[in-house]
């Protein structure tokens, strides 16, 4: 639809405009004196980015891969932006999540962040968006590092703007761990450059098998997996995540939960399947980590008394699911991983939106303060129900489509009943902590009747966007063919190169 309207000259520039427009908009936000203008401006920019990502996705679906030479220097010498089905889907996810998160959160930003910091907040938000889009769009290993750092540095600043003083320590811990991750990643990329003489991802893929420096490449592989593992919060490297999600401003948590770890997982998949082409290694290393993440993080989620923290541990468990699908390494399983990425973004994004609304009105995200809140805030509670059902994977929600395709991938890949039972078992754990939250919200009786009696429903704008996301969870549950088609093409692009 969009592709037909756009002139051909503009169309060839779309890969760079996708990244450059938010990059240019970020410093413009500094110049605004009023937070309100910066908000509207950022909303416009994320809307444009979303439109570009839709156009890119359509273009990729019709015509295959787009290669864009930055500065006119032909790849593999210059920096190449390379859009195929795998990253076009991620670009769409990131830009639409950014748009919806901003659209939802004007009220929560105004209460959580001091007025004079608003322009800088939107600057950091747009830089974070730029970084995540850049990681997804680029076809150059070092450029991916640069964008990973742009998004990470912006994220540290965003997290530190949280209202609680503990946001500072959360941001500092993330800064230290994230910097270690980025360092190991860039050392790995440096070793690859030493062994092959190239930084272009597709050029790396062709040169690595012919390189005589086998040990160097193995070391590079290890360093890159650890670095991206930290960014993606893969199980033993997840320690930064719970505090970041709990203490960051609500809009930041919504955006990060829907996108940041997924972009790192995408890059991991790109390195494992396209550059190193070593899927069996991924299986033996990542499978146990994925299983541990699914179990332990779900159990940890059960122990928490803070709703944001429950959702944060749940995210670690769900990242385990995605990693599990990637570790199976068949086309069907990678497609399931992409489906999990998309549906988890829908479910967790919706949940954090509802939580933001309730936390705004109650002033707390402790489960104890939310007893019986569904009476005062029925719509927010309903959004939570729908998104939790989708997270668990109940039929007729988007989550079911993903979990079902994961189960069928397990049966067609390894025919292992045990693995299938584990997936089903962890879904039961998910049901347990979802049940714990919903029971408190619906059936709990407030400690003091007056405390919650005069609470009102979340602001209309917040509620409408949350309801929209909840509706998307249901819509894609009924009509899963679009998402599964997207994911299938993404998996083919990664594993077969078209």
């Amino acid at each position, binding site marked *: 639809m969009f592709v037909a309207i756009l002139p051909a000259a503009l169309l060839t520039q779309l890969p760079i405009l996708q990244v450059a427009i938010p990059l*240019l908009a970020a*410093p*413009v936000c500094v110049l605004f004196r009023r937070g309100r203008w910066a908000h509207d401006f950022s909303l416009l920019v994320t809307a444009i980015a979303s439109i570009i990502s839709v156009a890119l996705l359509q273009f990729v679906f019709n015509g295959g891969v787009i290669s864009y030479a*930055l500065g006119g220097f032909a790849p593999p010498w210059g920096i190449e932006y390379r859009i195929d089905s795998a990253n076009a889907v991620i670009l769409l996810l990131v830009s639409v999540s950014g748009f919806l998160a901003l659209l939802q959160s004007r009220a929560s930003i105004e209460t959580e962040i001091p007025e004079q910091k608003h322009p800088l907040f939107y600057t950091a938000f747009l830089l974070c968006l730029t970084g995540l889009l850049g990681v997804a769009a680029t076809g150059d290993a070092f450029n991916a590092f640069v964008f990973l750092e742009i998004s990470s540095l912006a994220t540290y600043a965003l997290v530190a703007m949280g209202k609680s003083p503990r946001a500072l320590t959360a941001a500092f811990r993330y800064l230290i761990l994230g910097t270690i991750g980025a360092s190991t990643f860039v050392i790995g990329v440096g070793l690859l450059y030493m062994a092959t003489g190239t930084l272009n991802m597709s050029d790396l893929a062709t040169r690595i098998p012919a390189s005589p420096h086998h040990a160097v490449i193995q070391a590079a592989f290890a360093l890159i997996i650890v670095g991206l593992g930290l960014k993606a919060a893969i199980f033993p490297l997840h320690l930064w995540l719970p505090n970041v999600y709990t203490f960051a401003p609500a809009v930041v948590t919504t955006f990060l939960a829907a996108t940041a770890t997924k972009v790192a997982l995408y890059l991991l998949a790109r390195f494992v399947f396209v550059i190193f082409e070593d899927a069996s290694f991924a299986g033996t290393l990542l499978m146990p980590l994925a299983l541990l993440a699914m179990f332990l993080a779900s159990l940890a989620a059960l122990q928490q008394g803070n709703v944001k923290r429950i959702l944060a541990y749940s995210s670690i468990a769900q990242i385990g699911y995605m990693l599990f699908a990637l570790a199976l390494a068949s086309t069907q399983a990678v497609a399931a991983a992409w489906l999990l990425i998309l549906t988890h973004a829908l479910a967790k994004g919706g949940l954090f939106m509802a939580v933001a609304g309730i936390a705004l009105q109650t002033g707390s995200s402790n489960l104890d303060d939310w007893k019986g809140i569904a009476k005062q805030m029925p719509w927010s509670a309903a959004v939570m129900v729908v998104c939790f059902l989708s997270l668990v994977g109940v039929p007729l929600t988007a989550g079911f489509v993903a979990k079902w395709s994961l189960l069928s991938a397990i049966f067609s890949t390894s025919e292992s009943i045990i693995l299938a039972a584990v997936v089903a078992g962890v879904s039961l754990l998910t049901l347990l902590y979802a049940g714990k939250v919903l029971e408190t919200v619906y059936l709990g009786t407030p400690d003091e009747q007056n405390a919650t009696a005069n609470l009102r429903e979340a602001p209309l704008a917040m509620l409408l966007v949350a309801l929209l996301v909840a509706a998307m969870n249901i819509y894609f549950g009924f009509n899963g063919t679009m998402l599964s088609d997207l994911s299938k093409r993404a998996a083919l692009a990664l594993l077969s190169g078209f």
Partner: protein
Amino acid sequence: MQHHLVLRVIAKLLFAPILLFAFYVQFHGDFGPGGGFQAGLIFASAFVLHGLLFDVSSARQFLPDRLLQVGAAVGVLLYAGTGLASVLLGGNFLDYDHLAEAPTSGQHLGIILVEAGVGITVACVVVMVFRAFADHLPCLREQDW
């Protein structure tokens, strides 16, 4: 005002030459070693030196914090804007060939603009970082030097 008199006099003498040297490094980047990043650091180091030997906040009178913020933003805008200009003139992002009639003068113009953007942003950000740390320290009283 008697302590560190030598250092203070030297710092005042050096202030302008350091700024001049920063511009030299900035424009020398066209012909040899140098460029925006180094020039920005040298430019900022003049203000750091001034801040170390005199009052940190007195430099705010002619280089206010808001100006630094705007400068940091304008530098990035200049860099990315140069990239966008080459897109509007029919080339790829940051393809300087299209900025002028002849590709060589286009490349020349492009690199000057981009390096100017880097220089402005680096200078402003380094001064901002210095002030952010220095503002947290208590001011030394005259007799404590």
